């Protein structure tokens, strides 16, 4: 065998384990769920081909649109969280004693984000004995019922999300971006008499815009698919569906109500939205980002 032939063979062998797993647990399931979205199937009787029926149902499914709006409402936290991360990064981008300790503390909530902290926050939001309402009562305010209130359940989840995310990956990315900004730019601006605010908007903001763009894209992709674990652990999707997101709705159809075909159809609709948002983001982002 030639040397190139041997290299090619080795290439296939090195790739094989991963490729097989990828094929069985990712590629084929993607196709399978697309096929499934044209069927009605309850797992127990044979699948029926229904053509586009699932997608037509989806269009008129009020619950789907309501939960879609819930998902988007929760995503309003994305810009707030990003501004928080950028603010923290700017504060931390200074030579100060003990800064590493603060960075570690800020990062901690994002490290442990998951069922453990969702349970913790469920307790923090307890209307009668939780940390927040106990504190509010001390200053004479009767706090809302948080997770049990249709109005306050979503903001409560967003507040927890802020705590989880603000000091995490995004802050580290902003910090790295800030460290790449040349100090000469700020010195020149100071000579021209720029104040702190002007320096931020004229130098910092444009210089970190590629990072902002990256974080925004990733957050949008994550946001459309998000909200499942929080809803499952903290609210059960309630009250009255107020915290049910698309991913939770897919779960309910697939694994609670055995609507496999319909669930696959919603999952594909979700994928289409994520894909479109990513494309739009790339096209639009190219114009406002300063590289």
């Amino acid at each position, binding site marked *: 065998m030639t040397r190139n032939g041997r290299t*090619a063979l080795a290439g*296939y062998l090195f790739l094989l384990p991963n490729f097989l797993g990828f094929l*069985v647990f990712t590629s084929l399931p993607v196709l399978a769920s697309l096929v499934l979205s044209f069927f009605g199937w309850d797992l127990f009787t044979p699948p029926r081909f229904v053509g586009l029926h699932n997608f037509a149902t989806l269009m008129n499914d009020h619950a789907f649109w309501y939960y879609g709006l819930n998902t988007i409402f929760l995503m309003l936290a994305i810009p707030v969280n990003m501004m928080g991360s950028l603010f923290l990064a700017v504060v931390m981008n200074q030579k100060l004693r003990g800064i590493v300790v603060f960075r570690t503390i800020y990062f901690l909530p994002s490290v442990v984000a998951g069922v453990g902290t969702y349970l913790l926050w469920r307790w923090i939001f307890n209307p009668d004995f939780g940390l927040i309402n106990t504190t509010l009562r001390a200053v004479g305010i009767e706090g809302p019922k948080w997770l049990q209130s249709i109005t306050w359940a979503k903001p409560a989840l967003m507040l927890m999300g802020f705590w989880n995310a603000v000091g995490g990956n995004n802050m580290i990315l902003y910090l790295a971006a800030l460290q790449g900004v040349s100090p000469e730019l700020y010195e020149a601006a100071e000579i021209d008499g720029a104040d702190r605010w002007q320096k931020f908007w004229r130098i910092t903001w444009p210089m970190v815009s590629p990072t902002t*763009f990256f974080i925004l894209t990733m957050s949008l992709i994550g946001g459309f698919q998000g909200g499942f674990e929080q809803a499952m652990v903290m609210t059960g999707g309630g009250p009255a569906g107020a915290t049910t997101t698309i991913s939770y709705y897919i779960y309910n159809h697939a694994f609670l109500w055995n609507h496999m075909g319909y669930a696959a159809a919603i999952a594909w609709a*979700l994928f289409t939205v994520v894909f479109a948002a990513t494309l739009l983001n790339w096209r639009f982002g190219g114009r406002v980002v300063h590289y």
Partner: protein
Amino acid sequence: MKKTATYVVLGVVGLFMLFPFLWQVSTSLKPAGDVFKSFDNPLKALVPRDVHPENYAQVYETTRAMGGGFARWYLNSILVAVAVTLGQVTTSACAAYAFARLRFPGRDKVFLGYLGTMMIPGAVTVIPNFILMREFHALDSYFALIVPAMFSAYGTFMLRQFFMSIPRDLEEAATIDGCGLMRIFTTIILPLSKPALATLTIFTFMSTWQSFYWPLIMTSEDSMKTLPLGLLTFMGLHSTQWTLLMAGSLMMIVPLIIVFVLGQKWFISGIQLGALKG
């Protein structure tokens, strides 16, 4: 003056970050009835009246009848997280080596295929995977918990990027000395990639430890649950036992905190490595 202001900001934010944890530790040590007392002063609510460390043992005692309970869930979590991490790092490293260094027909097309799937929501693939496992009667097995999670496009991508940045000179010299590809992989590429491998190991371990959706769908028996699921079941049964719930969830997140503090530098570099794809 400016420095003082900065420290004040940093300190206030730090308190906001730490307070929930303090509250959690404090709740986990309280006598069961004390969490349902109203306090006029939140600081009084924060300091336990008397300390009950036996709450932590109670977490196990009260769940023992549930297929072995908390201890079993802990062991399951360790087993699954370690196996998935080993599997994922191994298969990713091999595939990444093939993508980065070995020339074969179709290589770049397959790689593009890998990249393309990273955008697909988990909800799309999880339904057929559930059906697959159900058909093969593999639900409620370690196979279902471990094997499907052992293959990662993200890990392959990250390691490939890192391998590409290793200079080729060393490998060329080794080839002239008659080294085979397997030897080059194990004696040159892998040792030089320790930072990337460490990062992937930490990330995979932590995300598998926290994994919720997959085990939720793949298991129904109490004895096969991992920690996040076990805690959830526990909450359903004892919704008012906040002291035990806080102790249990604290025991769940402590390994994460330890891994994070020990591996901090890998963490930071890993976040930046992951962002390169942007």
